[in-house]
């Protein structure tokens, strides 16, 4: 779990709506047994030519892309499969937060567990961020997780939602597994009064 408290950083945008996890990290890159190196394959099919050379004008191949730590994405970002390789690849590239008007459920859950901050903003703010990236690509914005705010260069602060539990885990960089482990005795008493439904080990 990555810790995230405050971030002042540049942004890039991939404005397409409904970006699915097959675009974020195509399935042929899922044949790995660890989490490393996926950043190089982030958006692979949009990012590289057939001969494997990078497409010069694709945002992630530019200096602007390499400097950015915030990805501003289109609506319903991360739909499709449950592959956690998607947020691993996004983090592997160097992003620490993704801003969109909405996220697919599983992608959002996965990101919250890793400390990749999903920031949900209204359409107007989203539009403003997109224009900023286009007109003044050097602009930095400020994200403050404790206060759940995203601050625009004009000083305007926009609140974003996040459940308190995930927020505290990310602020402190603590894995959610630890919380579950604290409840072992509750799980034991649950198991003692609820008979097992199936036994996979039985023949």
């Amino acid at each position, binding site marked *: 779990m990555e810790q995230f408290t405050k971030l002042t950083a540049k942004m890039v945008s991939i*404005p*397409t*709506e*409904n970006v*699915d996890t*097959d*675009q974020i990290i*195509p*399935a*042929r890159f*899922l*044949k*790995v*047994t*660890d*989490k490393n190196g996926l950043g190089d394959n982030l958006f692979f*099919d949009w990012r590289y030519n*057939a001969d494997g050379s990078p497409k010069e004008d694709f945002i992630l191949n530019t200096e602007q892309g390499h400097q950015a730590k915030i990805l501003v994405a*289109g*609506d*319903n970002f991360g*739909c*499709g*499969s*449950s*592959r*956690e390789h998607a947020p691993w690849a996004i983090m592997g590239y160097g992003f620490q937060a993704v801003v969109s008007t*909405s996220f*697919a*459920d*599983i992608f959002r*859950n*996965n990101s919250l*567990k*890793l400390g990749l901050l999903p920031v949900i903003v209204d359409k107007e703010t989203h539009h403003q961020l997109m224009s900023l990236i286009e007109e003044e690509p050097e602009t930095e914005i400020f994200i403050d997780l404790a206060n759940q705010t995203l601050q625009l260069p004009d000083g305007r602060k926009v609140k974003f939602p996040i*459940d*308190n*539990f995930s927020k505290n885990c990310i602020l402190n960089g603590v894995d*959610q*597994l630890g*919380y*579950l*482990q604290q*409840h*072992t005795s*509750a*799980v034991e008493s*649950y*198991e003692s009064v*609820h008979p*097992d*439904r*199936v*036994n*996979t*080990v*039985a*023949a």
Partner: protein
Amino acid sequence: MSQNGHPKTLFEKIWNKHVVVAEEDSPSVLYIDLHLVHEVTSPQAFTGLREKSLTVRRPDKTIATMDHGIPTTPPEIPISDIMVLKQISQLEKNCNDFGIPLHGLHSPNRGIVHVIGPELGLTQPGMTIVCGDSHTSTHGAFGALAFGIGTSEIEHVLATQCLLQVKPKTYAVKVEGQLPKGVSSKDIILNLISRIGIGGGTGYVFEYMGEAIRGLSMEERMTICNMSIEGGARAGMIAPDDITFEYIAGRPHAPQGEAWDAAVAAWRTLPTDAGATFDKEIVIDASKLEPMITYGTNPGMGMLITQPVPDPMQIGDVSERQTLEKALKYMDLQPGQSLLGKKVDVVFLGSCTNSRLSDLRLAASLLKGHKVADNIQMMVVPGSQQVKQQAEAEGIDKIFKEAGADWREAGCSMCIAMNGDQLAPGQYAVSTSNRNFEGRQGKGGRTFLASPLTAVATAITGQITDVRTMLN
């Protein structure tokens, strides 16, 4: 009406029964009855356990198989992809080290994880079921709460048999009336997604109900629940009934004797109580449906097969318009064009959506006596080795082979194109799978999602065909 308090939905009954801890300001700790594991999304979770010196809390509630990367070529041919081999041996080692039963490469029960769960009788009403795969929603067809999870969550369940979950909202999908001939459960779900869009169910659990749903077999119900995630909902459920119980009875892991009677009695209390309310609702008239087909690059871009491809210029919202333009460019389709008569290159019959015995039977019954058109390469991939074996016992494989289709070993195959079964750039496929995302079935490949009947009709004529014209 439930004994304590207000009327409850099927979802609420299962949820309430599985909450271990509910603290204010935190997600609930939810108990998981069954955890399905496959080779692609699990290795890093086991690594996490080893790093923390943890064990698997309940290997007896966990089961593993191999499906995503497995070749569908004859088993004698050795696997050449070293990365796939590594994932396979890693899963074998993990299952061995942690005591998890595995239906491995040569098990007669191996198959797509969402096909074998029900087949083995492991999927039962009232259970909570998870898997590191978004189509875990399939199991909801039995009146279970089943959803896909990420690799961090896989580790959580392995270690604690629990998950942290925020309670989702409920969404009633009422499918009234009766399906016309040539229209199937695949068309119902494609129609729903085309209406609500691929984000329409985000944050919700669907419950499918109504006359058309009640009339479906278990395998048809699984097709619908399978694609709940394509509408953005992590789970989709159907209340269990006699059709459900009949399907489960006698399967290897089904309760037996007195335990069976007790189980059925408990399962009968699961359906949504009269008067229970949902957060959202939609009504679909099944009798007005036609075969469906997708034209774009997400499953929400679907239409009745007789409709024209939509025109981006008719869409007011700029980003929506651009999304459609981008999709039509990728698909190389024109606004206003009909897809009927469109030549395609590949027909894929398979995937956890439509690869069960009844899918293969139905497809074979239409294909019988016909040949696959010269321009078509048709691939038939059974969902599990059991499905394959049963189909062969019935002689269904012969119908496919004689027609010129390729009859394969079980696996995910061209649904996800990880194992070498894939489209070439620019090729068009009619596919019975669930995702038509760019490159999903092979880099540069173009997918039209449809039902098995539409797929076979297309295979016979070589072009996208309204199957109703072939039925008398």
